[in-house]
């Protein structure tokens, strides 16, 4: 049954014989599935499994299917799954523009075209003219927006969010949150959000899966 979106088929993750995560589910394009649980419940572990960077110390089973393609055994860079962590993790050795260029698909070869797209992307997030800035000099909210845009430029087919709003103050949090969800909806991306914060879950507005 072909079905666009992100599907988790009986994903279970064990460590040392103890089950951390058990989840099955489907996230349709533009939909948000929130996974909630206290710290240590394996929320982030689930995300590393989906992006393909799970530590071999974990024992994971189950399939991850994205738009009808089984990506469980693909290398992380071939999965086209974007992720945002609670730290922005902008590469500190690159400028803001170079960070975006790192994300921008390599299939766009022309330098002028790449530059144009990066400038346009900066305008989109209200950071026009920030191209040559040191990412470390940005505010928390600005960094979060650059991190989001860097990921969107890589052309992801799904979006994973690892408590990406928890380090922002309340005012910025609402702004960035709606920016992320609006972009995901506009691009028709399935979103998996892990958080321990109820307001995140409410703002996401989708179904909630609880881990314990």
């Amino acid at each position, binding site marked *: 049954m072909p079905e666009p979106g992100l599907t988790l088929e009986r994903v279970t993750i064990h460590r040392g014989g103890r089950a951390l995560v058990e989840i099955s589910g489907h996230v349709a394009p533009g939909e948000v599935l929130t996974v909630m649980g206290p710290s240590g419940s394996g929320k982030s572990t689930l995300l590393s499994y989906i992006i393909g960077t799970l530590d071999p110390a974990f024992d994971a089973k189950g399939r991850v299917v994205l738009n009808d393609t089984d990506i469980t055994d693909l290398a992380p860079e071939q999965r086209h799954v974007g992720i945002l962590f609670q730290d922005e993790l902008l590469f500190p050795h690159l*400028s803001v523009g170079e960070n975006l260029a790192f994300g921008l698909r390599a299939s766009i070869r022309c330098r002028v075209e790449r530059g144009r797209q990066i400038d346009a992307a900066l305008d989109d997030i209200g950071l026009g003219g920030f191209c040559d800035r040191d990412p470390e000099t940005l505010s928390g909210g600005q960094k979060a927006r650059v991190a989001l845009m860097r990921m969107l430029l890589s052309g992801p087919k799904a979006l994973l969010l690892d408590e990406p709003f928890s380090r922002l103050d309340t005012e910025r949090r609402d702004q960035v949150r709606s920016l992320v969800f609006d972009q995901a909806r506009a691009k028709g991306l399935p979103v998996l959000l892990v958080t321990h914060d109820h307001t995140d879950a409410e703002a996401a507005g989708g179904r909630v899966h609880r881990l314990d």
Partner: protein
Amino acid sequence: MRKTGPSGTASRNRRGVSESCNTSSARARFLPWAPLLTLAIMVGPVVAGLLGTVAPAFGYMPALGGDGINLDAFVMLFDWPGITRASTLSVTTGIASTALSLLLVALICAAWSGSRAFRIIERMLSPLLSVPHAAAAFGLAFLIAPSGWIARATSPWFTGWDRPPDLLILQDPYGLSLIAGLVVKEVPFLLLMTLAALTQIRTKQARDTALALGYAPATAWFKTVFPRIYAQIRLPVFAVLAFSMTVVDVSLILGPTTPPTLAVQILRWMNDPDLSQRFLGSAAAVWQLTLVIGALILWRLGEIGVGHLGRRWVASGSRGGATRSFKAVSLTAAILSASAIVFGILGLLVWSFAGLWSFPDLLPGAFTAKTWMRHAMNLWPIITETLIIASVATLVALLLTIACLEAEERHGLRPGSRALWLLYVPLIVPQIAFLTGLQTLAIYTGIDGNRTAVIAIHVIFVLPYVFLSLADPFRAWDARYGHVARALGANCDGVLWRVRLPMLLRPILTAAAVGFAVSIGQFLPTLLAGAGRVQTLTTEAVALASGGDRRVISVYALSQTALALLPFALALFVPAIVWRNRKGLRHA
């Protein structure tokens, strides 16, 4: 699961991208073999060298007509009149300088760790550490000699001397000046190792708890921190002990002469034109190795004894005191030790530009560049040779180290504590014990006496230092940067070259500088692998020691120091310039 904080222990648990890395390219196929290759490069020559030493020691060396197995060489060795004295010197200078260095380092940390003075000490470490042993020894010699700066500064108003006194201060028969020369160089090394250990253990809480229980700061440190620190720095301490017992260059400059320390005597026998002396030299090298093993066992027993006493001291609950005198004594010792190097180098500088300089004038009557100009022509080819050897050896060591660390990351090949021991093998097995054997083996293979042989041998000694220097920052790197980069479409190599290595520029350059300085300082490996035909600044400077021309010695020793310091300056300034607009990397 992490809650807060940009990087730290939690992120380390999430390492391991193992199965997901593409393994089709040739480079990717090589990577899993990197740790094994590196170990082979480091440990292989040591083992081969030891065999090459042991065989002739027991009479087996067909090239020189020895094809039986006998103890003749050992009989000759123990008939040599100097054997008792030379052996005793090796043991006493080794143990004394190691114990003194360790005590000094412990005192400095106990009294000062966490203070502002301590941060100044930390910053002085790298330059002090990079001064080659030979240059530091020459500097110290020119300070304490009867006609040295200390005698000049106190004459004639204090000492009454108007000519250099006839005292045997340098090369004294008890090896005291040799011990002093070793201590000033080993203190920075052990301090650096202690600092690295301090960052791994949470020492502040333990110490603060003890302070709250009414313990004096130094006592608190010795009772709560030192036992754990010592467990971490045991291998470096063993390396210092083995090195101090068998050092050749410092001993040629500061050590006794009739008889010299055992290691120096071995070198004489090995370099004797009469090739049959090699049996004797090999036997002596085996004996030297036995002495080192004996001293290491003795030291280990000492550790147990001290540990026992220490436990009783802790159980006694004595709070200690005398904080001020602790601080005063340790700071004085630290200053003395550091200024021995600083003023030593300054002394070399003055001597290298000195015109006529009569006793007891504190400074020369005239300064001139004559010595420098006269030796410039000879210096250039030697400097070039030194630079080539150090650069290639460092580059090889750096590539192997990065390959090992990356293999550890990608393939989960994490070294256990046994592997750490192997890393210390070239540092603990005395150079004189296995290099003599390697030289003997080289006679068969004909690979000695050229630059390649010297570089290959240097790599053995540069590698452990480069690895030890780079491993912690490499492993501490926040792996989530890699995960983000992979999710953005970069493959494993892309992450390494485009993200990880650029972010680690500063620690990589520092590791390279350490490796470079280690290579510059190598005396015995250069001499033996180069068969005396490859001239570096170190071999030339030490060869000048017996001539006693202070101006020429100063020119060579200073050039040697400058060459060793230069990469540290680069490691400091290059990242500062390249990352001048990158705040996030300024302190990385």
